[in-house]
């Protein structure tokens, strides 16, 4: 590259490999008047080279530079690859603050409406599915029960045992000071049956099964499998969601019972080894403090947790947009929303059954 009498002479190759260096070299002629760019020395040029010439012409537009002495091949490349005539597409209109809020509210209203329709659909088809098994895959409820229930049993049992152990250990340290060792049984029994068992099970299911439901349905949607089901006159809710819904309804009381029992055994271990209580005394106390209401409330609310997990997972799965990234996004959203609603439902049930004025 050289500069003489307001003419910039370019030579050699103008390609993606040489353009970065040429841009650096060009800095030395910054501010100089250039009204002609001589390309007689250019031996080859590609689209990067042409983009470089476009940028150069644009930056020197005050001097209206002319490209001269182009060989046939350079001229042909410039005419094909020049981007000067391409107009940048206009991006969408800018919305003002109030329009954004209004549109957000309308979107929220549509989402709520869609969710209500879906919940109604799921309950309707689940109820119908109990009596009419036509149009359902054979063995799908058993298969889903194995995936949602049996496969989750191990991790739920392990975490419940550890939780029971921790609860007992931390409360034992305080209770020992007052000689109230025996009350550790009360604490473990009531907390595991009414609170920890159902909520721990629900949170594990939200992370495990909720995410799997959302990602499965979302993947089916982006790969047009849901459309294919519709085209075969198969209701996707009935075919895909209902088996999961029925399976989780069957599994949740069993998993909560497992979690509660194993959690109590975790507490028993501490009671025996740390508080010198016997198993007979511990269980006597457990059966004494627990009421039927506690057991029914613990099991009853777990059904609502389970249904919320399936409904939220399915809702986000069907809501997916885009491809792989969209699937990841709705999966995360479904887990967060499931855990949020499990805790809200738990708070509502506590208010209903235990709040006394």
């Amino acid at each position, binding site marked *: 590259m050289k500069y003489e009498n307001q003419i910039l002479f370019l030579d050699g190759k103008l390609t993606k490999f040489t353009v970065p260096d040429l841009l650096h070299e060009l800095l030395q002629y910054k501010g100089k008047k250039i009204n002609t760019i001589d390309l007689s020395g250019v031996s080859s040029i590609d689209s990067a080279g042409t983009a470089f010439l476009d940028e150069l012409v644009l930056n020197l537009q005050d001097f209206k530079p002319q490209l001269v002495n182009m060989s046939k091949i350079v001229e042909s490349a410039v005419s094909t690859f020049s*981007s000067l005539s391409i107009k940048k597409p206009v991006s969408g209109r800018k919305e003002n603050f109030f329009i954004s809020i209004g549109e957000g509210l309308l979107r929220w209203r549509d989402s709520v409406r869609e969710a209500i329709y879906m919940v109604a659909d799921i309950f309707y088809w689940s109820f119908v599915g109990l009596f009419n098994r036509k149009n359902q895959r054979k063995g799908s409820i058993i298969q889903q029960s194995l995936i949602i229930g049996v496969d989750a049993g191990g991790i739920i049992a392990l975490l419940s045992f550890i939780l029971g152990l921790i609860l007992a250990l931390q409360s034992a340290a305080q209770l020992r000071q007052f000689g109230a060792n025996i009350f550790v049984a009360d604490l473990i029994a009531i907390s595991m049956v009414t609170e920890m068992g159902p909520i721990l099970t629900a949170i594990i299911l939200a992370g495990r099964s909720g995410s799997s439901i959302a990602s499965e349905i979302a993947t089916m949607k982006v790969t047009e499998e849901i459309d294919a089901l519709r085209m075969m006159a198969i209701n996707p809710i009935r075919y895909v969601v209902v088996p999961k819904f029925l399976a989780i309804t069957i599994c949740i009381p069993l998993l909560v019972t497992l979690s509660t029992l194993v959690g109590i055994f975790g507490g028993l271990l501490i009671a025996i080894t740390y508080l010198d209580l016997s198993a007979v005394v511990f269980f006597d106390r457990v059966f004494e403090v627990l009421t039927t209401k506690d057991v029914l409330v613990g099991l009853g609310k777990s059904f609502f947790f389970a249904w919320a997990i399936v409904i939220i997972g399915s809702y986000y799965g069907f809501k997916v947009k885009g491809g792989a990234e969209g699937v990841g996004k709705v999966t995360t959203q479904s887990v967060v929303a499931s855990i949020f609603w499990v805790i809200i439902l738990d708070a509502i049930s506590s208010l209903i059954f235990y709040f006394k004025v």
Partner: protein
Amino acid sequence: MKEPIISVRDLVSKFGEQTILHDVSLDIYPREITVILGRSGCGKTTLVKNILQLFQPNSGSVKIFNKEVTTMDELEFNSMLSKIGMLFQNGALLNSLTIFDNVSIPLEQHTELSVDIIARMIRVKLKLVDLTQAENMLPAELSGGMKKRAALARAIALDPVILICDEPSAGLDPLTSASLDELILKLKNLLKMTIVIVTHELASIHRIADRIIFLDEGRVLFSGTLQEAKKTSIPEVETFFRVGKFG
């Protein structure tokens, strides 16, 4: 005689027990459009993927730019890939990125060009494939033909020396298909590209092919120029060029 830019010798490729390619040998010459033909399942896509090392062949040699690629280390092969563009059968665009961002990927990864220059190059490539107004759209918002054109824009983003297209015309209407052929011819003439195309479209073959490679059940049945292919007495090839169908 020209030196081949891609040279395949005794290539054998298997899926489990099934042999897809039997001792395939062929040459692709620079600045030519070579069309690979053959009925569905004859191993065309496997051959292309073996050449590009997307599937490792079981045995045989593949030379690109006179370098053996089956034994090449990853770093060297990756640098070679910046000279090769591939248009996949289904486009293979990244669905989470806009068309503009999809085309920018190879430019950002393989060059040190400034953002302004890259933006210009992307817009030129999008203009070439007539997708200027779609740059902010996501692939999911495009039709099948538009996706394929966007994928072609990405394949030619780096002005590759070799462009490989797996069934570029599949799913396109005849007019779009013809304009794509014109574009491919333009790329060949202007950028002196070597182009390998897997296609069944007879009209397209007549328009663009310099050389034909006819595969049948994993073997090369015919290899020669378009004129030679039209005159050959090999029944399968002769039937295809006479009636536009595989015999």
